[in-house]
Each structure stands twice: as C-alpha cells, then as structure tokens.
C-alpha cells in the first residue's frame, strides 16, 4: 500500500474541510480515499475496526467523484469523504453480516436509505465496520470477526456495539462513520474512544435497511471527530422516508449551521441519577463540563429524574423481547447460514444454534421468556409502563431545562474480556444511555477530557424529542471548552 502524496498519518481532517477541498478541486477524492485506505492498512491489523474493507469499490467511487468535479458538477456536501458503515446497514451486493456467523457472506439486494443518502451526498464508503453480533453488546467483543480494540489503548475495549465505527474515527481511518444506537451503541463507544457520537430522536433517521435489533429503540446515528461533522452527517441521513412507517414526516434537518450559536440563556440540568454510579473521575469531568456551560452563559442546575433508575431493567426486557422476534427469520431457509438436518425444525435448530453466539442466544431467550404466556404482563407489560414513566419523568425536567447533562458511561474503557462472562455488569455500562432510547429522545456524547487512567470521558447532552438543535449547540460549547489531556 502506497501513501498518497502530500498526506501524513494522524487524525483525519474534518469531513466538512475534506468535502470543501474536493468540491473546489483543491484535493482529489482519490487522494483522500488513498489516505484513508493507507491508514486502515497501517493500523487496522491492531485495531480491527473493520469487518470488511471495500478498497476497490471505494477507489472506483472516488474516481467517479473526481470525474464529476472535473466535469463541473457538484458531488454533494460529503464529496470524497471516506466513511465507515456499521455492518448492520444493508449495502447492495456488499456483504452485510451484523458480524454474525448466521449471516456469513449475505449480500443484500438493496441499500439502506441512509446508505443511499450518503451516496447522494458524495461520500466514499471504505468498509463495513466491526460490531457486537447483531448490535448486542457494549464492548464489540461478541463479533464473529473478533474484537475491536480501542485505538487510545489497545488493551481496552472500544465500547459497543458500534465499536468499529467509533474506533475507525478515533484511529483516523475515516473522519466520519455511521453506527446504530439501541441502548447507547453509538454514544457509549464514542465516549470510550474519545469521539463524538449522536443518537437522533426516534423517527428522524430512516431505519429502512438497518438490520433490526429492537425496532422501537433502534436509530442510526453519526460518529465524527467533531460536533460540526456529526451535525453535518445527521443533516444528510435525516429526514422523512416513506419506506419506514415510523419515520417522522418532517423536513430534513439543517443543523450544521446552527451548531456554534452558543448556550447563552439556556437552562441546563445536571442529571443527578447519572452521577450516582459514575466513577469519581468521570463525575468530576461532568462537574467541570457544567462549569464550562455556566461560563458560556447557561443557567446550570441540578435536576433529578428518578424514573431513569428503572431504565436498565425495562430495557433488558423490551429490547430482548423485540429482538427475539426480529431474529426469528434467521432460520436457514432463505439466506445466510444453513446447517442441514433431516427435517425443517431440526434444520432451524441446528442453524440457529451454530450461527448465533452466546450473547445473542442469551438475549433471544430472555426476550422469548419475557413475552411468553404467563410472564407477558409481569415483564414485558410492566416494562412498557415503566417506559411511560420515564417519558413523564423527562417531561417534568424539560419544563425547566432546555437540555440535560450527564456522563455517557459510568466508567472509561475497560479491559478486553473484563465483563464478557458477566452479562449484568456489561449491561450496566449502558445505564446512562438507555433512558434516551426508551423515551425516543436525542442525545449526544462529546469527548470531555480523560479519567484517572488517562482514557477519554464522554459528556452526554440529552434534549427533548426533536430538540437536536439545542443539543448540538450545547455539545459545541462543551467541545470548545473541553480540557486538553491531564487527569480530572
């Protein structure tokens, strides 16, 4: 692999800057793509951020974009920007496996809506990023392609399940990436890898072509090195899609231009419950973040939403319940793995037993149990009532606050293997991200200094449904005021 002339390894330039260069002809999309592919070739052996690198199609695509620029056309706001796609986003003719053996080699006959929108904006897909199998995990260790390592410290996990996408951005392989967030799967790895990750309001980004984990919670979300890039990516993938019934019929967002408008006059609540179980160094960073917001003109106060304490339990009933149904279709009949047997039931059983990993089986069984006769109301029904209570609890807080602040994860990145056989302790790393999914609200994780171990801490900004503009403004102020290096 040769390095493109005039580039040097290191963090990629911002997506906005790359696109501006490519659109104006100052840099070629091909050169940018080569730089990205070179960085991957040099670093991904260690990090394992990618399940699949699509170098050939990326090069062809970059040439197309260069040809369009040469012909005087505008390839779009992401012209020539390399992007990593989580491997649960369908890409026509390109393997989409959710990092599961059961979908080994499956090539969808269609593109996800977000993939179409990225293409229309001129982005260059360089590969499918690694993830926890079917997005079930918080460490990207349950992937059939082996774990992803945290580029900040490769003995640590990158978080999950979009750990490959977060690591790709953190390692400088691509300036932006797409992940999916069902219980924190974009925000938590963003926090652990020291990048920006956002979960949109449920319904603002199409789920068509996102392989379902828990349909009522799943949202595709952007990962980026900067808040502005995350907003730009959200603007491109967001907006109504008639192929997704739950897609909100609203105009596409246009937030990239409002990001830097500041927080003067806003009221921001520091969410007490999110600090309860947090590592002291993490909690210290959040206190510091609150000071940054206050210094920027926001009114900062402590708020309590006690209902969020029930989020984790409700989530680990609702998400597995939906997953148990969503993952029934992997039965060996139409696509993916088949382990043959004498009859169809045995074939289904053999295929699913061989094709799914332990965490996926655990959640399928948990969800099947939660929905089964006799337990439906005690577990699933109660969880849906808790969901109502959480929404009501946030509503009270938002009567006073424009946005809420808390940590994204209670700790910094943990060691590989530390929680793999202890599901409950693994699940607890999502305790601060899950309530936003249950409520359907947007939230964003912004890097804000490091913990006592020198690893990144993410500050999380939560906002009411459809208040992404407020959320991005707060995030941009935190980004600008984030401490550089050093322990809290």
């Amino acid at each position, binding site marked *: 692999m040769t390095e493109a002339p005039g580039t040097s390894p290191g963090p990629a330039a911002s997506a906005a800057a790359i696109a501006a260069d490519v659109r104006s002809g100052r840099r070629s999309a091909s050169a940018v793509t080569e730089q990205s592919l070179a960085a991957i070739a040099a670093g991904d052996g260690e990090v394992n951020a990618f399940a699949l690198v699509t170098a050939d199609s990326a090069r062809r695509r970059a040439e197309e974009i260069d040809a369009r620029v040469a012909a005087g056309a505008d390839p779009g706001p992401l012209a020539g920007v390399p992007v990593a796609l989580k491997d649960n986003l*369908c890409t026509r003719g390109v393997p989409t496996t959710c990092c599961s053996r059961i979908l080994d080699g499956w090539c*969808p006959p269609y593109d996800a809506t977000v993939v179409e929108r990225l293409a229309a904006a001129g982005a260059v897909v360089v590969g499918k990023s690694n993830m926890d199998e079917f997005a079930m995990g918080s460490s990207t260790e349950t992937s059939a392609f082996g774990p992803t390592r945290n580029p900040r410290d490769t003995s640590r996990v990158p978080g999950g399940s979009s750990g490959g996408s977060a690591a790709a951005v953190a390692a400088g392989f691509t300036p932006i990436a797409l992940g999916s967030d069902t219980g924190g799967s974009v925000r938590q790895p963003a926090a652990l890898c020291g990048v920006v990750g956002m979960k949109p309001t449920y319904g603002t980004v199409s*789920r068509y072509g996102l392989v379902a984990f828990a349909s009522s919670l799943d949202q595709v979300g952007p990962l980026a090195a900067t808040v502005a890039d995350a907003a730009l990516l959200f603007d491109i993938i967001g907006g109504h899609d008639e192929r997704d*019934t739950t897609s909100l019929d609203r105009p596409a967002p246009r937030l990239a231009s409002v990001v830097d408008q500041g927080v003067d006059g806003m009221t921001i609540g520091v969410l007490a419950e999110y600090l309860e179980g947090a590592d002291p160094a993490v909690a210290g960073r959040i206190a510091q973040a609150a000071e940054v917001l206050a210094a920027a003109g926001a009114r900062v106060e402590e708020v309590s939403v006690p209902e969020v304490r029930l989020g984790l339990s409700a989530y680990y009933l609702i998400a597995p319940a939906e997953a148990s*149904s969503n993952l*029934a*279709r992997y039965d060996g009949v139409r696509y993916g793995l088949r382990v043959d047997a004498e009859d*169809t039931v045995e074939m289904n059983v053999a295929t699913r037993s061989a094709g799914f990993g332990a965490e996926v089986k655990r959640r399928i069984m948990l969800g099947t149990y939660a929905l089964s006769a006799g337990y*439906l109301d005690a577990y699933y029904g109660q969880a849906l009532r808790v969901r109502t209570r959480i929404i009501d609890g946030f509503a009270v807080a938002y009567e006073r606050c424009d946005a809420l602040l808390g940590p994204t994860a209670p700790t910094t990145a943990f060691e590989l293997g530390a929680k793999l056989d202890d599901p409950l302790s693994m699940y607890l790393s999502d305790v601060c991200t899950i309530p936003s999914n249950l409520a359907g609200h947007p939230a964003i994780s912004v890097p804000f200094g490091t913990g006592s171990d020198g690893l990144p801490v993410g500050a999380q900004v939560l906002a009411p449904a459809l208040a992404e503009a407020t959320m991005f403004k707060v995030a941009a102020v935190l980004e600008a005021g984030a401490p550089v290096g050093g322990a809290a």
Partner: protein
Amino acid sequence: MTDVRRADQDGAGEAWEMVVGLEVHTELKTATKLFCGCANLFGDEPNTRVCPVCLGLPGSLPVLNQRAVELAMAIGTALHCEIRPSTFHRKNYFYPDMPKDYQISQYDEPINVSGWLELPGGRRIGIERAHLEEDTGKTAHAGASGRIHGAEYSLVDYNRSGVPLVEIVSAPDMRSSAEARAYAAELRAILVACGASDGKMEEGSMRVDANVSVRRGPDAPFGTRCEIKNLNSLRSLGRAVDFEARRQIALLESGEVVVQQTRHWDEGEGRTVALRSKEEAYDYRYFLEPDLVPVVPDPAWITAVGASLGPLPGERRARLATLVAGALPAGAGGSPDPGVGADLEGAPGVSDADQEQISTVVDLGLDGLVTAAVEGGIPARLALARTANEAATDAAAAAGLDPRAYTSLLAMEVAGSLSATQVKAVLHDLLAGGGDPAELARARGFEAMADGALVAVVQEAVDSHPAEWDRYRGGEEKLAQFFVGQVMKATRGQANGKAVVAELERLAAR
C-alpha cells in the same frame, strides 16, 4: 326462521344440538400486497413477486396499504361492525412459508368488531371481529404423495407472502350445517359486493375454518370444540360440519370426551382427521408490532368508505323480489309496496324457486341485467329465469354483457320472433363474443324462421298428417303439441313454439 336444528342425524332421540362458528379468511383484491408494492397476483412464475419486505429480508420494514385498510372498513360496514382504532401485533411461530417467522396480524384491537350478518331467511349471525393480516407463502411438497406427510422435502414460493387478508370471525351462532353453508354463501356474496374479494373458495381466495361443538339442547353450556381446516367448497363445509358433529356425539354417547384440537377435512375420505403438529404447545408471544403505527379511522373516512359501497346482497335480493312480486297478476300475492322491500323475501307470490333464482343472480352480481331487462319491458320472471339459468352459466362473461343487447334479445322471445331454444343459443353467442342479438340470430339462420319460412313448414306438417289435422280442427287442442313436435323436428329445434301454435290457429280458422 331457523333457530335450532338437531344434529342427531341417526335420530337417536337425544336432543343434541350442534354449535358452529366460522372463521373465514378472504384475500383482498388490491393491486399490491399488504405491506409492500409487489403485485398482488399469483399463479405467476414462483418467487417473481417478491421484494425485501415480503421476503422478510434483514432491514426491511412494512408500510401499510391504504386500499387494504379501506376494503377492510368496507367489509366492516357491510357486516354492521363498529369500525375502531386498530393496531397490529406480531404472532410469533416458526414455519418455512412465513418469511419473518412471525405473522403481522391484528390481535386485541382489530379494525372491525361486533357486527352481524343476516341470512337470506332473516336470521342474524353475530360477527365478533373482522381484522387485517398478511398471508403466507405457498409450499409444494416433493415426493410420491405431493402432500406434506411423507414428502422428502418441500419447495417454497413467496409470491403469495404478504397478500392482504381479512379474517372474519363469526359468533358461535349457527346450529346446523345448512346454516353454516348459508352463512358462508351470504358472506361470500357480501365480500364480492364490497369489491373486497373474488370469493373463489376453490382457488383459495376465500378459506373457511369451522369451529364445531355439540351440546345437549339449547340451554346446555357449550361443549369442547374442534377447529376444522381445509374447507374449500360450500359442499365440503356442510359435509365436514355434519361429520364432525356426529363424531363428537358418538364420542360423548360412548362416555368419552372431545379433545380440543385442530382437524383437517379429508374430502376423499369424507372425514376429519387430527392435524399433526409439533410437541411444543404453541405460544405465539403476541406483542405490538413496533414497525407499524395505529390506524385511527376518523368519522369522515368511515363515512366515505361506506358511501362508496353499492347496495348489498340482502337489499338487492329484496329489490328483485319486489320486481317478481310486482309482476304477479292482481290478487295472487297482493300488490307490492315499494317501501317494504326486505319484507318481500319469502312473501306470498315469491316462491322458493323464485327465491333461489334471485339468490343465484345476486350472488353472481347479475341483478343489474335483470333490472335493466325489466325496465326494458321484459316480464320479471322471464328476465330472472334467463339470467339465473342461462346467463349464470358464464357469470364472468354475463357480468360484462351490454344490458341493452340482453334486453333486446329477451324482447325477441317475448315478441315470439325467437323461440326459447333460439334465445338460449343466441345468448350463448352473445356471452362468447358479444354483438347485436338480431344479427347473431340471423347468422344462425333463425330470422328466416321468423318471416315466412315457418308458414311453409307448418303447412307441410299439416299436409303430411291429415288425420291429426282433422282431429285438431275438430277441437282436440292437445294435438297442437303434436304439430309443434313435427315442426321442431323439421327445423331441428329452431322454430318458436308459440309462433307454430299461432300459425296452426290461423290455418284452422281459415
């Protein structure tokens, strides 16, 4: 009329009563499937009407077809249901013809609830619900038998996967196989009248399952029921219900119990047999479909759908009965009162035979032809008989018939210019290819009979049988039939009997 009938075919003397409820699945006549834009057509090449949604590919999502919802609302309106805000659930079970391994179906909040259907005899059968759901794919079994049991392997075609269905669940209100058949027939006529279904049971576009139980008399609690599947004709339905009731009675009379189960009707063997299913008890784990949102019809929408409905079979039968009753000579059945349409069913003057013809015509949607003919001056009974007996033999073609052409054909019969046999022959041509009835008659050489030729043939018959002619002239009127027979023989049935008699009378009076 019919309230309670005994199920004991053997006349054992026990007051056994059968209790029947029907679950009818009807495919809706939409252009596309319930949740995707694939064409709602099959019989096509296998797996050519499929897309990510109806194949259940990972990442695909359902989007509800508005027309399917409106047809469901039309069915609800026609069945006097309450049309309600509704939701979709997932019914989870594994089966290879079901691509997602769950069926999207309406569960505890169906779009239509609490209606009724009135049988032609006037009895009302309750409708518990009529809900929307998706169909499955189709499985073909390879191996000697071509049936599921004993097949070495199976082949699945998903063209039918995702076709919209409405499942109509009756109350357990039927008390005989005849009532069950009448209900199914009437429901079919209503579905066709709504434009919701083509009602073809044999082709699977309307599928009937029967829940059957028996009890000792109308006041006894309901017995344990069995569900019978695979009833693909009204005849099978009737036979299966009778068989099953007798089977249950025999069990109970010999001191055994009825086990609640699903049974399959074996048409060849004429009996029901228990279905084989896996050991696992089915636990469908219903939960609200997260990929779809509630359907909340507002009153304006419900009204608009109702307004688009044409008259329903009951009303249309009453209208024909009015015509028939109105055609009666004064005093035979009282004068018809246009304000009491429905009461005319079974009214004096409208015979059972009339009623049967009326039902046939309405079931096939041919009542427009009868009405047009009557308005064109054709006697109601003639229009009804020709439509029910002749036009009905090719209902599809009859539905496309030009009512004016049909009326002018029947007018020729009334005028005596064509015989009944000739009219039937011309109608056959008209159904086959359309055209002008007078020209079609001419092409068959019938017109020649009408002007002059008949006179010669009758004269010849008279000349050849002088003895019989003398007796006829002497007052033996029945000999007219002899001459009509001779003329028919000579013309190979093409003569008009009435015209022959008229000519005989003319000759005799000379």
